[in-house]
């Protein structure tokens, strides 16, 4: 203890134990006793302490909640490697605080309406790994399901699906607002669980609005036919089972479990361009066609503008998933394409004038 008597300011600053006391308050009683027993050092200690504080400056702390939410975002993200990485990049974490709030609230409501997590339906159906995709971005996010179906998630929408669909049916669970283009396959019906509403389709396109915090679930059909039923309703009555045709909108009241159907002029529910888009092209330059797809699906398409400058497309594309649309376009262009993590590359040899 004696050697502290001859300490210079610099010696104090260089003493790791002293620094730990200044910065972290470690071994407080020990250092207080030094301060008391070596009054000659009081000024040196004060100076050293001030200097160390200057070196540190003001530190803005990260709250435990924020750290936890950022960590779980990172873990979510790395858990779904096959999905659309580049779309998560950029400033997606900026929305984190807002997102947390909304999900927190959503989770709260959910707890009171259902005792199981929103995607529990899937875990019941076997040991297959389940992928969950959450769109935290402002931009829409395309998810391509194992059967090729396209799902366009709006901000804060989420979908869970098994990495391999079972032999007799395709089942997914979603929350939030999304647009679906289901790959046609009459042998393997496609089921969507959104809250208490179950939607059965064979091949069609439609939008769903199933926000956990809202008291209703809505769906509007763009093409094809969709069957709706309600689970947890106790007894199956006629009112909670119905069939929907294009331009029909159904609303499920989550409190009364009542389904209500009505006709709409446009199948628009969640304000996505794709809801009312019919992808009709008439001698349209290929770059405009790709631009349309990019905007509709939130994907990025790489192609050689120079080589394809003479290419025009005349086609009427419908409710096929994006992969099928690209196949049709590439047929016309005599091109091939690759789709990786929502980045699409089209390789073409160009078109004749």
């Amino acid at each position: 203890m004696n050697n502290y008597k001859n300490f210079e300011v610099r010696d104090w600053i260089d003493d790791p134990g002293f620094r730990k006391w200044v910065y972290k308050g470690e071994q407080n009683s020990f250092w207080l006793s030094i301060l008391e027993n070596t009054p000659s050092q009081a000024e040196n200690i004060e100076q050293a302490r001030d200097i160390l504080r200057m070196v540190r400056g003001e530190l803005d702390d990260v709250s435990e909640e924020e750290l936890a939410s950022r960590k779980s975002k990172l873990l979510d993200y790395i858990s779904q490697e096959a999905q659309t990485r580049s779309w998560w990049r950029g400033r997606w974490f900026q929305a984190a605080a807002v997102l947390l709030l909304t999900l927190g609230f959503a989770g709260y409501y959910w707890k009171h309406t259902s005792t199981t997590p929103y995607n529990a339906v899937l875990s019941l159906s076997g040991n297959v790994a389940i992928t969950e995709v959450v769109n935290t971005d402002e931009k829409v996010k395309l998810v391509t399901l194992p059967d090729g179906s396209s799902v366009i998630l709006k901000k804060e929408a989420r979908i869970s699906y098994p990495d391999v669909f079972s032999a007799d049916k395709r089942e997914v669970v979603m929350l939030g607002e999304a647009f679906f283009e289901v790959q046609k396959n009459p042998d393997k019906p496609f089921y969507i669980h959104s809250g208490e509403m179950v939607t059965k389709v064979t091949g069609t396109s439609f939008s769903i609005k199933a926000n956990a915090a809202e008291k209703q679930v809505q769906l509007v059909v763009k093409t094809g036919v969709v069957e709706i039923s309600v689970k947890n309703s106790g007894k199956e009555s006629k009112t909670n089972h119905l069939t929907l045709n294009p331009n029909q909108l159904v609303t499920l009241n989550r409190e009364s479990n009542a389904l209500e159907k009505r006709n709409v002029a446009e199948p628009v529910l969640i304000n996505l361009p794709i809801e009312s888009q019919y992808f009709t092209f008439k001698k349209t330059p290929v770059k405009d066609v790709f631009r349309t797809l990019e905007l509709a699906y939130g994907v990025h398409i790489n192609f050689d503008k120079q080589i394809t400058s003479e290419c025009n497309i005349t086609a009427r594309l419908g409710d096929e998933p994006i992969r099928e649309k690209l196949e049709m376009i590439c047929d016309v262009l005599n091109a091939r394409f690759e789709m990786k993590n929502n980045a699409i590359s089209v390789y073409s040899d160009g078109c004749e004038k």
Partner: protein
Amino acid sequence: MKQKEYLHDNYLSERWLQFCAGDKNAFGDLVDHNFTSLYHYGTRFSPDKGLIKDCIQDLFLEIWEKREKLDHIISIKPYLFQSLRNNLIARLKKQSRFSDLSANEELVSNDSSPELIWITDETEALNSSRLTNGIELLPKRQREALYLKYYEDLSHEEIAAIMGLQRQAVANYLHYGILKLREYWKYKTILLTMIIDFII
């Protein structure tokens, strides 16, 4: 005390190797252990909290993507600090190209030399209202070296690696940095009066 720290370090490097092998829990631990200190270090470069946190997120995703190639790294914290530093400086330079320079002049000068970017104009510091803290009077790189040495407890070698400097340069920064802060402390009162006069 020393023993505990040693075990702690040992544990962390073990977790690091598990992370390199693809262990997601180990990755989560890595985030837990380093996020806050990376953030605090990041605030040395920019007041834009969102930007710093974004850079840290990107950094973690980056190292996850190349985890298999990282098992040779022994000094984990210096490695993370160095990577964050590079990313942040690159990001800030890019940003300064797109935004109003005058709004950012504290962060990045329009001089493209990375060396010059971190050298503050002393008169600017004098005009700053944060003058109560003498650290503002030091060049940014000197401040940074002091922070890494004294707050983060890193060695001269580690600081040299992080900042891309020679060991001797680090020693000089630290020596003169402390010298200036001591001078500042001694003449704080006089200095403050002078500055108040100067401003008025």
